[in-house]
């Protein structure tokens, strides 16, 4: 049943993306930036998906610390790993966009730096998990680390409001202009990215369940 839901969601996401890509390529170039502006249709949705994943990881980590239920720990690691992949896609698309508009791949401004720090923090979270063998200790330390790592997320979001940055002001909530006719394509792309993120998380969550089963079988084999 779960497999069927995953395949269904995947097919739906792919259909949305194909339809969107065809329409986006047909849109006229933006007046000031030209064709490269169309990267916004991927750059922002992958960022929103990554930061949503970080928020889910925070909630799952808090729930693990409160309930000590390992399902929440599995959810936290699954969603963090998926968020990391999306944040990497966001950093790479942003860097290529910057190369065309600013003439450089990278600028050490508040937005870019805090996003990179965010990526490094969550990569550190995954490394921390590999370093601790005992499951309860690993889950507890990882949950605490995840809660602290989330402090960087509001900094990433609001950095362009709090400081003067090379990165432009927010297009959607900071006075930027985005053609209203383009908005549906952007929103559908966002839905597709969130769906892909959900599918990845569910798949990764199933792997965590398999890992627990494997650990149990290993203990059983060891005790025999």
């Amino acid at each position: 049943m779960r497999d069927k839901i995953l395949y269904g969601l995947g097919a739906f996401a792919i259909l949305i993306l194909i339809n969107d890509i065809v329409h986006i390529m047909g849109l006229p170039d933006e007046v000031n930036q030209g064709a490269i502006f169309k990267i916004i249709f991927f750059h922002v949705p992958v960022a929103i998906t990554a930061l949503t994943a970080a928020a889910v990881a925070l909630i799952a980590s808090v729930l693990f610390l409160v309930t000590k239920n390992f399902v929440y720990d599995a959810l936290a690691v699954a969603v963090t790993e998926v968020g990391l992949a999306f944040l990497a896609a966001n950093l790479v698309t942003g860097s290529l966009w910057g190369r065309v508009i600013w003439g450089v791949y990278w600028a050490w401004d508040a937005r870019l730096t805090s996003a990179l720090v965010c990526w490094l923090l969550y990569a550190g979270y995954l490394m921390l998990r590999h370093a601790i063998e005992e499951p309860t200790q690993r889950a507890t330390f990882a949950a605490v680390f995840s809660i602290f790592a989330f402090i960087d997320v509001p900094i990433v979001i609001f950095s362009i409001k709090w400081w003067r940055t090379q990165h432009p002001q927010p297009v959607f909530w900071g006075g930027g202009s985005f053609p209203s006719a383009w908005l549906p394509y952007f929103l559908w792309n966002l839905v597709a990215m969130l769906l892909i993120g959900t599918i990845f998380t569910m798949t990764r969550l199933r792997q965590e369940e398999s890992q627990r089963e494997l650990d149990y079988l290993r203990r059983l084999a060891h005790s025999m």
Partner: protein
Amino acid sequence: MNLITSFALLLQPSVEDILLEKQRLQHNYEFLSYGLIAAWLILVVYVLMMVSREQKLKKEIAGLRAMLEEKH
């Protein structure tokens, strides 16, 4: 009339301007495609990593189950 035509011709973009604009547009498209390819490549690599991990887990679980059944 001749003066107006000459003035209008002066206002028209030169061949160099058109070539520069063409170059800028090509450059833009090039980087747009790099960006999209890179973003999808990251996600595809992640999917491949998940597939390989899934296969490894299934293989290990099947091996351990077979071993436990043999011991029984």
